[in-house]
């Protein structure tokens, strides 16, 4: 994994993310959000967590992004130009970024290079999921079911 690749992908990602945060048109924002997530997935690939990257693409591009665009369509009447971003928020964000970066750069213990490790195969993840993470897995399944039902109930046409 070379810094060049990382930096390139990172720049793309952050640019897309910035676009998502600032673009006026909601649809464009959503699409660039998707691009940003693809970039994050790329970073995951570089970090050797292929599976997570694939899952990220799969879930976010395949599901969340589509959900968002559907929502945009369903609430279309409201999707117009917005007034410009308020600078307070921007300032705060920048401040947080600065603080975090300062903290990160100041901490020496994180200035390490990656050790050489065996790539994490899907098999290992699957075993982990089925053995030591089986309860969390069940809980997530439950949560997803609940979310599904909850979402359905929320968007159901209430009959007066």
């Amino acid at each position, binding site marked *: 994994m070379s810094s060049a690749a990382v930096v390139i992908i990172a720049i793309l990602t952050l640019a897309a993310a910035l676009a998502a945060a600032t673009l006026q048109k909601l649809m464009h924002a959503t699409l660039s959000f998707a691009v940003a997530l693809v970039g994050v997935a790329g970073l995951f690939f570089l970090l050797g967590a292929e599976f997570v990257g694939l899952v990220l693409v799969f879930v976010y591009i395949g599901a969340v992004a589509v959900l968002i665009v559907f929502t945009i369509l369903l609430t279309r009447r409201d999707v117009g130009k917005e007034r410009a971003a308020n600078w307070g*928020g921007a300032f*705060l964000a920048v*401040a947080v970024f600065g603080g*975090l970066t300062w903290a990160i750069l100041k901490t020496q213990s994180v200035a390490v290079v990656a050790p050489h490790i065996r790539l994490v195969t899907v098999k290992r993840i699957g075993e982990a999921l089925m053995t030591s993470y089986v309860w969390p897995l069940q809980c997530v399944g439950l949560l997803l079911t609940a979310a599904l039902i909850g979402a359905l109930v929320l968007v159901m046409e209430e009959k007066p």
Partner: protein
Amino acid sequence: MSRWILDHLWLIPAVPFAVSLVILSLPNGRHKSAAVLAVAGQIAALVMSFFAFLPTLETPGFRFVQNFTWFTFGDHALRLGWLVDPLAAVMLMMITLVGLCIFVFSTGYMAGDKNFVRFFAYLSFFSGAMLGLVISNSLLLLFICWELVGLASYLLIGFWMGRPSAAAAAKKAFVTTRIGDLGFFLGLLWLYGRSGTLLFYDGGDGCLEKAGLTMLGASATFIALLIFCGAMGKSGQFPLHVWLPDAMEGPTPVSALIHAATMVAAGVFLVARAYPIFSLGAINGVTPSLMVVVWIGVITALMAALIAIAQADIKRILAYSTISQLGLMMVSLGVGGVAAGMMHLLAHGFFKALLFLGAGSVIHGCHGEQDIRKMGGLRWLMPITFSTYAIGMMTLSGVPLFFSGGWTKEEIQHVTAHWPASRLPYYILLIGVVLTALYMTRQIIYVFFGDRRVASQHAHESPRVMTMPLIALAICAILFSIVLTPAWPWLHDYLTGTAAGVELVRLIQPTLFLSLVLVGAGFALGIWMYRKAGVQDRQRPADTDPLELAQSQLFRFLENKMWIDELYARTIIAFSWMSARLSDWMDRHFWDRLVRGFGGIGQLLGIFTAGIDERGINAGVDETTVGTRGLGRLISAAHSGQIQTYLSVIAIGALALLLFYAWLA
């Protein structure tokens, strides 16, 4: 074959049960198939019983026992079993044979009844239960079958549940026998408590064998008496006999099968089966329990015979005669003549079935009329019925030498005469013989002789399917006497388990002449009394009974069955009424008051606490709530409802935290 049957004894009761189930499942219209099934099942039972009977012939005193464990509780198991010994075997034969005849008869008698199918289902059910009863080797199993038999009899007495009288009779029979069975059950429990087993024969430690009996000790008497209660209930002995006459509400074949031939004999059979318990610790053949048996039997025999004289319903007369005959058997058992008692039981089974079927045929011929005073002159109209009926009547009244009844009665007289305790039963039996002859004569004269009357105008002979069984039973009743004669007392020795020998000398005995005299006297008396009863001018029921003319008070007394039912109504039933009323009153007035009182107390408490709430607690709560509301207002001012404000506050917080750490470092 016999071997196989012995190994599968359970089949004998199981087959009729199965048949009855199948019949029940039939649709209501399938008369023919129902009849065929029932008869076939009965024949199968007969064949199997025959094969179970064979080995008992080969070896005298043969006994085959087959026990199995029903269920286990704790460390000891409750075991049931099957048993074949002479007693059981002859009962099997008798029941299946008579049963078969009656099944065939009822195919004719019940033809055209809309509940034909149900009838045969019940009938098969009954025969299954009865067969199970006689071959059961455990008092518990016997009791179960006993109750099943009771149920069958209940169902069949109330077969025409349309008639209120039938329903009432069924209930009466059920309740009355239940009283006896309660005693029986207590005895059973007691026995189990003492001897720890309910098996009769269990290779040495059954409750009828040395080991079991010795464990009983003094309690044997009471156990025996309790068991005898059951016998009294079923066999209609004196205090509990009231149900049997009313049971005649059922269809006649039922009366023949259940309330003459087999079920009522179950009581006698039970006593015979449990005889070792009765005779435990006997001083030359007398024990308190046997004493009770004897006296009960004597009273029953005499009383029933007397009542029978004054009855007008053809079937009731037979019912009472049944009761008295059963009393006779009880006496014979009590005085130690088990064999004699059983012999009479078997003979009685045949001829009483014969008589009832004959009565049934008569009723059938007279289109359901049962009052003998409305009949008459049927002699020529239904010859077969008449002749067979006559045979039955003579057998019942014990005409010696040719008829089985005679021999058995003489046997009983013989054993009774040698009873050490008292001679009284013997004399009473003699009177009983006379009375029997008397009332049978009366009945015959009323029904068959004299001129025709209302009911018998258009009487006709019954169809072949009904007369055939009559003939068969008549032949049985006569031929049966062969194995009864003292000359060759085969049955006696068979039952007692000794080899039989032939001595023609013993054929002639003093009792023979005695009974000849007595029966003759009875006939003569009857003919003399009722000579005019038959001949009346037509279209009119016979006017008052001759006896009534002579002794109206006595006749009334007898006609109303000695007012025993009324007595019960006045005493027992009235008492239960009273108690019911009393408890009702208590419930209404006493307990209710009590409950209401408690309720009132509760109310008072409630009011009190309510007061406390109002004044004490609520005030405090109100104050608190006011305070809280104020605080709430204060805080909620900070909630602008703007998510992003909150978010930015969080962010600022995070930043502050960061700076704090920086300052620390």
